[in-house]
């Protein structure tokens, strides 16, 4: 019978005790793993959601510039046009998975009731996904205007005196006003008429032309500079720029989230370390009497400590492994549900190593002192321990 045998039998004999000890290690490890993995994914989810809120990349023709600031236009020169063929090309960049929304637009002017107005041809599905802040009178969430329907900016509706469901003639075709976009504070959007892209291309007799592309890219894993660089390589004739306005506030917010997630992980790690340590201390203390018996029958201090360490390692190994499996499993299965996010929690096997390692280190550290002091007690004293 070796020392390891005694340790193992000891764990088996005191089933409830060992079980409770394993349980407390398990809870500590599982909760740390669960919160760590879930918060990391939440961080990504938040970043992705922010990236989809408005565009962060703008693609314009290389030539041509408009002198306008905040919607106040002081001069123009017409640029070339882009082509629809660019969109499939955009999707061939190396980090193509980062392109979340691509919204091509064609601009045209039209005379309506004697006033010239700006018509923006858009792919409504993409555009409405990009402009999540638009409140549209007459259009329910999830609905998309049909090819013969238009959306009006609030100023257009006011100046032309139009209301939803009215018919308007634009470029010789009849359109129905599907909805009016409530004031957005952006003069460009408040003073434009939005029409289906293919309808406008047909009316303008430019079936593949587009004027500009607004796009939203996920930049959690791939920085925006990298995405724009790759796009520039593929689209040499166009001007690809990153919009700093949306980028900076996004970075700020995401940074805060990740800071918060780190704080939570650290605090939880410390707390669960304490809980595990406390359980260990009390369980070793309880064994004072046992240790006295062992000492009385002639075991050496060294043997006893070796035995206790074996026991502690065995328990924390099991607790750590089960805790990791439980935490990881719960995070993968229920994390997205609890956190209301669309991002899945990935399987991170490396964490198993850290979990078991941390559990072992904390438990061993916590049991050194009580084990040492118990072995130092006079066996007679130790036997009196109750």
């Amino acid at each position, binding site marked *: 019978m070796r020392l390891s045998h005694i340790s193992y039998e000891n764990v088996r004999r005191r089933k409830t005790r060992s079980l409770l000890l394993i349980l407390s290690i398990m809870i500590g490890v599982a909760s740390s793993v669960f919160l760590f993995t879930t918060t990391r994914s939440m961080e990504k989810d938040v970043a992705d959601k922010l990236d989809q809120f408005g565009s962060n990349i703008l693609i314009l023709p290389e030539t041509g510039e408009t002198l*306008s600031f905040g919607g106040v236009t002081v001069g123009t020169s017409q*640029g070339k046009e882009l082509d629809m063929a660019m969109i499939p090309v955009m999707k061939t960049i190396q980090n193509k998975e980062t392109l979340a929304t691509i919204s091509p637009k064609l601009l045209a002017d039209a005379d309506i009731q004697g006033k010239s107005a700006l018509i923006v041809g858009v792919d409504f599905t993409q555009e409405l996904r990009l402009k999540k802040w638009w409140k549209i009178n007459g259009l329910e969430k999830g609905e998309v205007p049909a090819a013969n329907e238009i959306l009006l900016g609030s100023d257009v509706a006011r100046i032309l005196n139009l209301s939803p469901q009215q018919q308007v003639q634009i470029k010789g075709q009849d359109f129905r006003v599907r909805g009016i976009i409530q004031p957005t504070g952006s003069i460009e959007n408040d*003073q434009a008429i939005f029409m289906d892209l293919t309808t406008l291309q047909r009316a303008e007799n430019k079936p593949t032309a587009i004027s500009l592309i607004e796009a939203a890219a996920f930049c959690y894993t791939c920085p925006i500079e990298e995405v724009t660089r790759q796009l520039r390589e593929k689209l040499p004739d166009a001007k690809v720029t990153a919009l700093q306005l949306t980028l900076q506030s996004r970075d700020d917010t995401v940074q805060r989230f990740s800071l*918060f997630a780190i704080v939570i992980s650290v605090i*939880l790690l410390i707390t669960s370390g304490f809980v595990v340590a406390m359980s260990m201390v009390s369980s070793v203390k309880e064994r004072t009497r046992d240790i006295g018996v062992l000492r009385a029958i002639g075991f050496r201090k060294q043997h006893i400590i070796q035995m206790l360490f074996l026991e502690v390692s065995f328990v924390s190994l099991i607790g750590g492994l089960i805790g990791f499996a439980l935490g990881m499993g719960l995070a993968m299965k229920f994390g997205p549900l609890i956190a209301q996010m669309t991002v899945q929690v990935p399987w991170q096997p490396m964490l198993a190593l850290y979990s078991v390692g941390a559990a072992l280190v904390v438990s061993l550290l916590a049991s050194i002192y009580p084990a040492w002091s118990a072995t130092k007690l006079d066996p007679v004293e130790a036997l009196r321990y109750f």
Partner: protein
Amino acid sequence: MTLTHIALQNLRRRTGKTVFLLLTFFLVVGTITTLNVLSLGMKEDLQKNLSQYGANVVISPRSEHLNLSYGGLSVSGVEYEVKKLNSKVLDTVLETLGSSVTIAPKVIGSVDVSAKRYMIIGLDFNQELKIKPWWKINGKIPQDNQVVIGSQLASNLNFQIGDMIDFGQGKYPVVGIMKETGGSEDNGVFTTIKTARVLTGINMEWSLIELNAQDSAKTVSQLAPVLSEANVTEVTQLVQGSKESVERFSSFSWSISLAMGLIGALVIIVTLAGNVNDRARELGVLRAIGFRQKHILSLLSREATIVSIGGSILGYFVGIFVPLLLGPLLVQNSIPFAPHLGLGTALVLGSLVVGLAAMIYPAWRTIKLDLQDALRFI
């Protein structure tokens, strides 16, 4: 000698165990309180920070002509008269709003120099840079008769800092170049309001006034009635965007609090179950000398009450102070002290309920054991 007395003496005799139990409650409640207070503080910080970001209210002239450009592109070269805001508008805005609102008025116009048209934007740089932190200027901020130019313009015309731009009426030194913003700024020439008025000939009026207000909706409702000749609108992209971010943060911290609560309850249950389990023998003795089940349960619940309330109150007090220490590391404005009484009450009551349940259930199972069995228990 009442049961309470026995309970207290019991706790005193087994100091180590009692401290262990108290520590468990202390840690659980302390951690949850700290995290909650921290997340509240961080949420407010985020909200404040986002609301200071960008112009969230715009005052623009009400025109009967429609704008014909989009995203920096224009559909026709037709020029039309650009309407402007009356010079009194700024005075009215200043009168109506207090100093808590950042007001950035602008003069936007153009200068033609030998077939090249420059867009001149006159603004108050102090105000403007406060609300547009993404404007990065290489070089200096212009004084009167100096200009900063957009990156696109600089690279198109090959201008560098120190060069002079000829605007016909005179030459102006370029003291800075604005880094690419991706927006219409890239083609602009920026200068002070005074210089812009000289260059563009817009003497008294304003082209646009951008505001940054803590509460943009309130600002709009204050200004709209007094500025009947102008359009006062909230910039919904910014307002909705920051609202969404803050809501996300709230729900993030809320789900974490929930998870922490569950974990805390589990830790308490495991610890207390272990404690009662150890005392099976003692409970057997009590039964043997004639204590009724009822008495034993009541004795244990008194112990649980003392430990859980003691530990959790302690934890709560420490938990509301720790964020004050951690605050400066995490947020820009330190977290103000607040008692968070509701949170404290809920946590103390919660740990009482969990503590009682976790103590009573294993005890009840133990004392149901036959006396002989219980005494054999080691």
